[in-house]
């Protein structure tokens, strides 16, 4: 204990609620947080350096390991940036498949998020198992399509690696039809729950101006009332063909960040319905695109998508050779943590876990 009666507590790096190996040095006055210093790097393997020593295609499976909950959206962001860099067109059918697997990824990310946050609040296991039961059904679809549950390595420059197996679309349609029942069940159990409301409502509100300046992106930004969804703004892929709403939160507190995921998952199911019924036949990959021995022209490009956790971007520089000159990942998980200290100051220690959970991070992406 220091002379001013504050206590330093080291939370992590191994703690169930830090979602991986992440450490926070918290200074407490009683139970109130007066200072918080996040410490990163326990999972650092210099992903960017590895990619700069690899061929362009060889980085694709490495992107799976960034945010290992959502490997398909990582694939998509990298493929999109390379396609921008080299001016590659994506085939129609591949665009639809990308939307379908991308939105399925978002749905399963948000479903497991609900379970994780409940775990952070002390509802150990039960809620998470409900969420994982549903997530597993989506992972089964991924396995049938790509051969892997989590490390999918599915997208290629100009399209996707393989076509949908027989009956896959029917299975996906069935899942999409059944999924709202799970969300209803979760909401019936949780949304009106007194303990959940007491733990989330009014905790760590974030104003729109601070969220923008602090680089918050994705659901965290929209929970603060900012109408900014990259699927709408950039309209990348074929997102401007689908009708969906962009939910926003009124206060930007933990409850808004929590509920926004539920609403977003419902909108994703909306998109999925439209994409599954509208998917055309055709080639799965642009026949002009080259994978092995691929050499994009000299130049640079920044490509980004609306990942389940926020803006996932890739900044690539090509010097015309078979390897990227510069390969940079814009990790939403890391940048969303910029405001962590600001959100936690003045709250109780027990709230820190909930606030961290409400931001939704994955350490494979934070540390890279």
């Amino acid at each position, binding site marked *: 204990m220091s002379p001013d009666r504050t206590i330093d507590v080291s939370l992590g790096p191994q703690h169930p609620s830090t979602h991986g190996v992440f450490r926070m040095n918290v200074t407490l006055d009683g139970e109130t947080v007066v200072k918080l210093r996040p410490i*990163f*790097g326990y999972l650092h393997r210099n992903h960017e350096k590895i990619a700069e020593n690899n061929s362009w295609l060889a980085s694709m499976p490495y992107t799976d390991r960034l945010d290992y909950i959502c490997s398909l959206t990582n694939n998509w962001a990298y493929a999109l940036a390379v396609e921008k860099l080299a001016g590659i067109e994506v085939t129609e059918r591949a665009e639809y498949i990308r939307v379908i697997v991308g939105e399925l990824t978002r749905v399963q990310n948000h479903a497991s998020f609900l379970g994780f946050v409940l775990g952070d609040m002390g509802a150990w296991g039960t809620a998470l198992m409900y969420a994982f039961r549903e997530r597993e059904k989506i992972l089964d679809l991924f396995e049938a399509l790509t051969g892997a549950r989590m490390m999918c390595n599915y997208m290629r420059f100009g399209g996707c690696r393989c076509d949908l197996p027989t009956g896959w679309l029917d299975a996906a349609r069935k899942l999409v039809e059944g999924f709202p029942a799970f969300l209803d069940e979760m909401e019936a159990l949780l949304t009106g729950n007194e303990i959940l409301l007491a733990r989330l409502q009014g905790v760590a509100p974030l104003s729109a101006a601070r969220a*923008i*300046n602090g680089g918050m992106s994705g659901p965290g930004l929209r929970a603060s009332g900012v109408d900014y969804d990259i699927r709408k703004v950039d309209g990348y892929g074929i997102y401007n063909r689908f009708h969906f709403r962009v939910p926003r939160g009124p206060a930007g507190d933990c409850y808004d960040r929590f509920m926004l995921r539920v609403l977003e998952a419902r909108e994703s199911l909306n998109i999925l319905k439209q994409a599954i019924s509208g998917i055309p036949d055709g080639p799965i990959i642009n026949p002009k695109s080259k994978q092995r021995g691929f050499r994009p022209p000299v130049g640079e490009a920044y490509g980004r998508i609306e990942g389940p956790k926020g803006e996932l971007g890739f900044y690539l520089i090509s010097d015309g050779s078979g390897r990227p000159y510069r390969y940079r990942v814009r990790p939403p998980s890391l*940048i969303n943590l910029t405001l962590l200290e600001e959100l936690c100051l003045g709250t109780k220690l027990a709230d820190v876990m909930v606030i961290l959970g409400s931001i939704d991070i994955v350490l494979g992406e934070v540390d890279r």
Partner: protein
Amino acid sequence: MTDVLQAIRAALPAATVELINNPGPGAQHSLLVSANDGRAVAKFLRDSLGFDFCSNVTGVDWLPRKVQETVSRKESVEGAGKEIPETVERDIPGFLEAVYHLYSISKKSGPLTMRMRTGDRAGDVTVPSLTPVWKSAEFQEREAYDLFGIRFEGHPDLRRILMWDGFADHPMRKDYAAPDDCEYEPTPHDETLARVKARQEAT
């Protein structure tokens, strides 16, 4: 992009800003701002042009390189002016670059790529920190400092972020060589075997 450049030149006539052409098909051109004017230009971009969201901050390492250029030299041969083509080798010194990708959430526009360059790769590696303008640059500038060794002047908390505090080098530099402390291999082969042999001969 050119209208942004014109607006900056009109508002800040003293600032040195130039357009860097991107030859790629995406044609995302960028603005090169001199390090001295970086903070003023950034404030102007945020407050007057609405670039309120600093999305991505990173470094790029450019090694010194030689460029062969063909220049024509004018010479008078027997009274008449003649142009003689000549190949000249020009040295381009190495430098580090801090790259910022800016978006406007209010106007839903972007990206605007803004770059600042350091004087060289060894002593003069300072650029102004833009964290006071966009808080989102805080961790990313720390990362660029950690991995590239760019010093961001005015950063509130410039420490290593991913590597440990006692680490000396900057691993994302192009000429970074990993220290020879390879993990123990029961049967060293290829490059590792060559290294082990070289070390045994040296001692």
